[in-house]
């Protein structure tokens, strides 16, 4: 079960006969990565980029084992591994300053997929939420490609409050399963599932069940044909080796695995190895082969105390993220494009409750019609006045402290004492170069217009199906009669949602000429997904907004809509009609006010 002896188990189960004579899996992988690098060396000369190329090409299963840690005080500890969209946690250690977990987990290393695993160590509390004590980020490919022959390595655990303080050390190991072994193991696993009489062979009827399980509805005659093709030695049964050969060969010619029998996901025909890896990991779920507990999306979820245990049967599949949890929980999950990790955007539970009460019920929206709109307008105006007062400056430090891991003061143009009011800080500028503009010299590449949470849809129909649930949403409604043209009607929609801690200035996504500005008065509903996902609320078409049209050579006309929201309802532009602009130039900002 993965406690120390798992590596030996793996060897014996995959190739026990020749395990003694062949080099270990680890050394073979290292050799493979090195050979890959040498090949690049010879053909293209030497550079660090070549190592990166080799690493980026790599795909496979990595077996990560969290062995133990040395902490600076005694407690009951648990560790989490966050990798891509998944987070796994170990069991909880005894009361000690040297927790020993020895927990392992298979992780999928995909081409162009995440590479960096975050390991977080928590002290546990019986009742409340566990506390994060230390963390480290490990690039698994760098780790796997290193020259060390040691099976495990220790890493410093950094203090989440101050990353230059070391709070402990964690020892871990990581190996890669050879893709050929992955395929063989996979064939063995699926064979055992449909091998009802457990003779290690597949009869015709067992083989037929297997093909069905792959979502393949080929005719009986075709199944017989496949069976005969697999049965190389003609003994009327298919062995593990024969099945492995069939899966390898057939999947390239005419795929027989169309969907994963475990999770139902449609598999990518063009990438056989990834398919096998996906199915292997899926088969492993719940079998006890994986020692770490999975099914969590972020380290926060994985670290919840007993309260989380009450709901651990409610399995989060990767398709439950976003919309559903956005409207049913006190956090919203967002995918960080830079780190390729899921992160939680926490919202105060009271705010969530009130937003749900208001925005997701007919009664709540009925209240809106009976004066609440005016209240939102009035509190936004009042907030604007307050945030423009000199007294508001005292809140800046508290705000920065609260969002300390999300506001990088090093990239802000002026020091904190420069800001005389909170609103001044809210619309802070960044140092030149703090936001590099992609393909600056290529105007045919559009860029993101704001530090934000982005949603993009090819058409308004897609946006309505997946995100905007307001029944009255339409492009005409969003842009207004004056600026809406037929070319926009079925156009591409990109939504940039700013959160309070974000840099609040917005920039041009494209180069061109600013043609016109149209002010559209309206309400100041929240633009939080809770409201956007409500069928009763039409945030984007009812809120106060300014529509501008940018005329470009590469993209035709682009409509840029700045939408105000509760409290942050003031929209200011730093460009005017007729200005010629370059993508990445500052366009304007949102600030507190009505």
């Amino acid at each position, binding site marked *: 079960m993965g406690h120390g002896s798992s590596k030996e188990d793996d060897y014996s189960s995959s190739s026990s006969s020749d395990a003694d004579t062949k080099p270990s899996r680890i050394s073979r992988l290292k050799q493979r990565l090195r050979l890959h690098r040498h090949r690049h060396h010879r053909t293209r000369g030497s550079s660090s980029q070549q190592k990166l190329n080799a690493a980026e090409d790599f795909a496979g299963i990595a077996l990560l084992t969290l062995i133990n840690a040395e902490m600076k005080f005694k407690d009951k500890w648990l560790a989490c591994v966050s990798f891509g969209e998944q987070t796994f946690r170990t069991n909880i250690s005894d009361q000690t300053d040297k927790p020993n977990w020895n927990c392992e987990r298979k992780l999928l290393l995909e081409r162009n997929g995440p590479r960096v695993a975050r390991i977080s160590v928590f002290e546990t509390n019986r009742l409340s939420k566990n506390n994060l004590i230390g963390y480290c980020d490990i690039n698994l490919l760098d780790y796997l490609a290193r020259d060390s022959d040691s099976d495990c390595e220790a890493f410093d655990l950094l203090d989440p409050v101050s990353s230059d303080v070391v709070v402990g050390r964690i020892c871990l190991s990581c190996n890669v399963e050879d893709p050929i072994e992955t395929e063989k193991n996979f064939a063995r696993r699926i064979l055992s599932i449909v091998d009802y009489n457990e003779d290690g062979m597949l009869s015709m009827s067992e083989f037929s069940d297997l093909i069905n399980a792959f979502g393949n509805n080929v005719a009986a005659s075709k199944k017989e044909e496949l069976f005969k093709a697999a049965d190389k030695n003609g003994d009327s049964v298919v062995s593990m080796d024969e099945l492995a050969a069939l899966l390898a060969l057939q999947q390239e010619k005419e795929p027989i695995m169309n969907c994963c029998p475990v999770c139902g996901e449609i598999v990518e025909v063009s990438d056989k190895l990834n398919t096998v890896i996906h199915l292997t990991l899926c088969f492993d779920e719940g079998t006890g082969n994986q020692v770490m507990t999975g099914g969590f999306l972020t380290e926060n979820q994985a670290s919840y105390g007993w309260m989380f245990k009450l709901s651990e049967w409610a399995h989060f599949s990767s398709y439950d993220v976003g919309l559903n949890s956005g409207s049913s929980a006190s956090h919203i*999950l*967002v995918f960080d494009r830079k780190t390729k990790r899921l992160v939680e955007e926490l919202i105060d539970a009271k705010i969530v409750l009130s937003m749900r009460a208001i925005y997701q019920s007919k009664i709540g929206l009925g209240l809106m019609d009976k004066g609440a709109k005016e209240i939102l307008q009035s509190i936004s105006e009042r907030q604007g006045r307050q945030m423009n007062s000199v007294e508001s400056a005292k809140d800046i430090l508290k705000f920065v402290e609260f969002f300390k891991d999300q506001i990088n003061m090093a990239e802000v143009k002026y020091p904190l004492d420069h800001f005389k009011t909170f609103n001044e800080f809210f619309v802070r500028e960044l140092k030149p170069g703090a936001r590099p503009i992609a393909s600056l010299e290529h105007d045919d590449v*559009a860029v993101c217009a704001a530090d934000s949470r982005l949603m993009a849809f090819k058409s308004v129909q897609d946006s309505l199906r997946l995100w905007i649930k307001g029944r009255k949403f339409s492009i005409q409604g969003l842009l207004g009669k004056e600026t809406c043209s037929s*070319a926009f009607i079925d156009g*591409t929609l990109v939504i940039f949602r700013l959160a309070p801690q974000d840099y609040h200035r917005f920039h041009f996504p494209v180069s061109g000429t600013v043609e016109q500005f149209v002010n559209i008065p309206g309400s100041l509903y929240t633009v939080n997904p809770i409201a956007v996902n409500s069928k009763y609320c039409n945030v*984007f078409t009812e809120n106060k907004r300014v529509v501008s049209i940018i005329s470009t050579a*590469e*993209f035709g006309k682009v409509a840029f809509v700045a939408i105000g929201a509760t409290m942050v309802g003031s929209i200011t532009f730093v460009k005017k009609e007729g200005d010629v602009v370059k993508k990445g130039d500052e366009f304007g900002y949102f600030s507190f006010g009505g």
Partner: protein
Amino acid sequence: STVICVFEKDAIKVDDDLLANSGRSLETLVSVGMTLGVSTKKPAGAEL
């Protein structure tokens, strides 16, 4: 607050990762200046 950009039909090919996340109702955390997509319009004279 929110910014919405509307591009004309078939004027832009948005980056696949952004579309894939959105297709799962999952927002993507981005920064100013990150790539959004490329123009699908042929530059003038491209057919010459």
